[in-house]
């Protein structure tokens, strides 16, 4: 029997109190746990400079994230949490091997991890349907959060996650390591002003997720299936439903609408994130979503576009023959066309304090209480675009977005798709 989410709150508040008492009036929020290496040594900072971390969802991407944090001398990694026994045990083994002890806790239920007062920050790499619930719970428990992309599964979740981060003064970083790292070929010339103002962006990436009709299989004993499903509709176990591989063709959770937005939001988080960062659109949300139906000749498939308040248009899978000549491009995935007019160069935003990757950026911000490179607000803004595109495809029509109300204008059908009811006892209110 699982407890309601809010049962983590008492411990959260004690922790918040202790942290608040320790840090009020100061810029930094240091961990208060005293470890056996509290004073540090030649290669390890003292405990007061270390961030105590745990990981939730420790397979595939979680494994990579854990490795990145484990390798940092300013992180003390103390707990892993996964509903799958294999991932849990392997995650614990990696941490224990790193530290040469058996101290890493291996937990099934994330609420147990969040209730620990000694943990400062968590990384979350579960399937997407858990992201909002866990992030909000972590904030309420006084934890900073590094959250794998795509940060949201629905449009409604984003503002609630931002509110939780701000209300509890938490550092919440989105988790696309590629946005700054992989797209410099388009980022640098655009920020240098070399192509003028960005007029249009073409992104080529797969489409939305699909319904899952897989048959029931016997539930293996090494998974807590009810907790894997969590807020998603109850469905019978099938290994293809919950496998964490990166495919979206039907043999992974990334394929299915209850758990993921499909390629459109999965790889899309990288490509849309890179393009939106390159074009400096991270503060904006689209105002128009346009459905371009398939041509009657059968040669042109349906595609979508969005329009930003500054007039920039972003297209998803626009046929090549309809695109303008690109000014800059990233492989075959992103093409950007500028107007060529003179534009002043701007410095490209970087990770904090010279950190070389997004993990270091997060840890630096956890220490200094700055907002990270992919602050949750910027991540949410970015993800609004593929989510809106997905709704446009699903309804096969164009939409108009009102950012202030976070609603589509004059379209109650589209507004029904802003969120979905969560299975009890889960809630994000």
């Amino acid at each position, binding site marked *: 029997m699982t407890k309601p989410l809010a049962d983590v709150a*008492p411990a959260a508040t004690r922790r918040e109190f202790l942290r608040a008492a320790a840090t009020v009036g100061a810029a930094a929020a240091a961990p208060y746990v005293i470890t056996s290496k509290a004073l540090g040594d030649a290669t390890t900072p003292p405990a007061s400079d270390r961030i105590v971390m745990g990981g939730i969802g420790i397979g595939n991407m979680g494994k990579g994230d854990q490795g990145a944090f484990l390798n940092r001398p300013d992180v003390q990694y103390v707990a892993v949490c996964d509903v799958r026994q294999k991932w849990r045990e392997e995650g614990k083994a990696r941490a224990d091997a790193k530290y040469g002890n058996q101290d890493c806790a291996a937990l099934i239920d994330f609420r147990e991890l969040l209730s620990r007062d000694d943990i400062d920050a968590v990384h979350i790499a579960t399937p997407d349907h858990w992201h909002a619930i866990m992030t909000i719970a972590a904030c309420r428990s006084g934890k900073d959060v590094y959250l794998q992309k795509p940060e949201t599964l629905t449009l409604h979740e984003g503002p609630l996650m931002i509110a939780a981060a701000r209300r509890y003064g938490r550092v919440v970083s989105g988790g696309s390591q590629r946005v700054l790292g992989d797209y410099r070929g388009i980022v640098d010339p655009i920020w240098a002003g070399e192509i003028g103002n960005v007029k249009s962006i073409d992104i080529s990436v797969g489409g939305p997720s699909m319904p899952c009709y897989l048959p029931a299989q016997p539930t293996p004993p090494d998974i807590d299936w009810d907790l894997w499903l969590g807020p998603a509709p109850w469905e019978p176990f099938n290994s293809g439903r919950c496998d964490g591989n990166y495919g979206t063709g039907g043999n992974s959770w990334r394929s299915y609408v209850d758990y993921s937005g499909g390629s459109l939001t999965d790889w899309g988080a990288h490509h849309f994130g890179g393009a939106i960062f390159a074009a400096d659109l991270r503060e904006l949300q689209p105002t128009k979503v346009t459905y371009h139906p398939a041509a009657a000749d059968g040669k042109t498939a349906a595609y979508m576009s969005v329009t930003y308040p500054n007039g920039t248009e972003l297209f998803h899978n626009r046929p090549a023959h309809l695109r303008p000549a690109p000014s800059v491009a990233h492989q075959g995935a992103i093409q950007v066309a500028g107007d060529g007019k003179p534009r002043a160069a701007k410095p490209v935003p970087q990770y904090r304090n010279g950190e070389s990757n997004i993990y270091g950026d997060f840890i630096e911000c956890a220490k200094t209480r700055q907002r990270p490179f992919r602050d949750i607000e910027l991540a949410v803004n970015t993800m609004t675009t593929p989510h809106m595109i997905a709704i446009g495809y699903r*309804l096969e029509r164009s939409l108009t977005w009102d950012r202030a109300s976070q609603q589509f204008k004059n379209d109650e059908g589209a507004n029904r798709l802003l969120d979905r*009811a969560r299975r009890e*006892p889960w809630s994000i209110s």
Partner: protein
Amino acid sequence: MPFDLTTLDEPLKTLAAYDWGADAAPFKAIDAAVIAAHADKALRAELEKRFTDLLGGGTTRAAKEYVCRKLMMIGTATSVPALAALLGDSDNSHMARFALERIPVPEAGNALNKALATVSEPLKVGMISSLAARRDPACVTALTALLKGSPLLAIPAANALGSIHSAEAVQALAAADPFAGEGVGEAIVNARLACAEAFLAGGKRTDALAIYQALAKAASGKPDAKAVELAATRGILTCADAVAAAS
């Protein structure tokens, strides 16, 4: 050209007996009809009738789930009785809410509110969650009554009142104990902070400030309430920033 409803006869017959793993190809026709129904009132009404008929006895859980997903998209007040009948059934309660939560008619909220009084305690949590999502002010009285009961319900009720943040909800939260045990107090404080943020976002700085000041006063001098005092102080400063920005 009107949608040819006869094309749905076989798919709907298949649907009635559908179980996970069976051929779902016939559903493509139903999915297409649901999309077309947005611009075709007659089709929508006919589809809704056929869907609600399927929610009665004799159909599988998987079939009911599929139907609820479709009614989430096109359901109206007509669907509400059939969906409401499933709210007390632990196998189907969530999927009934899956539809009802998103159907923007008062009848859907009334059904959830009514079920809140009758379904089992675990399912009540779901009703509260959906009422919160709908921000339905009509349920404030029922939610307020839950604040002094079991934490299992008091906590989500407090969260829901924070989401609704109507005048009555704010009043109910103000009257509740922000230091109640077993997590209830923390939920009440969180909900009051959410109300204050909603007021601030709506330009109601005075109302927001009143909440922050009340919380700061309640927490003052209580060592265990430093976090509340800190959050309230942060809110008071935000209100001051709002005044400065407006002047």
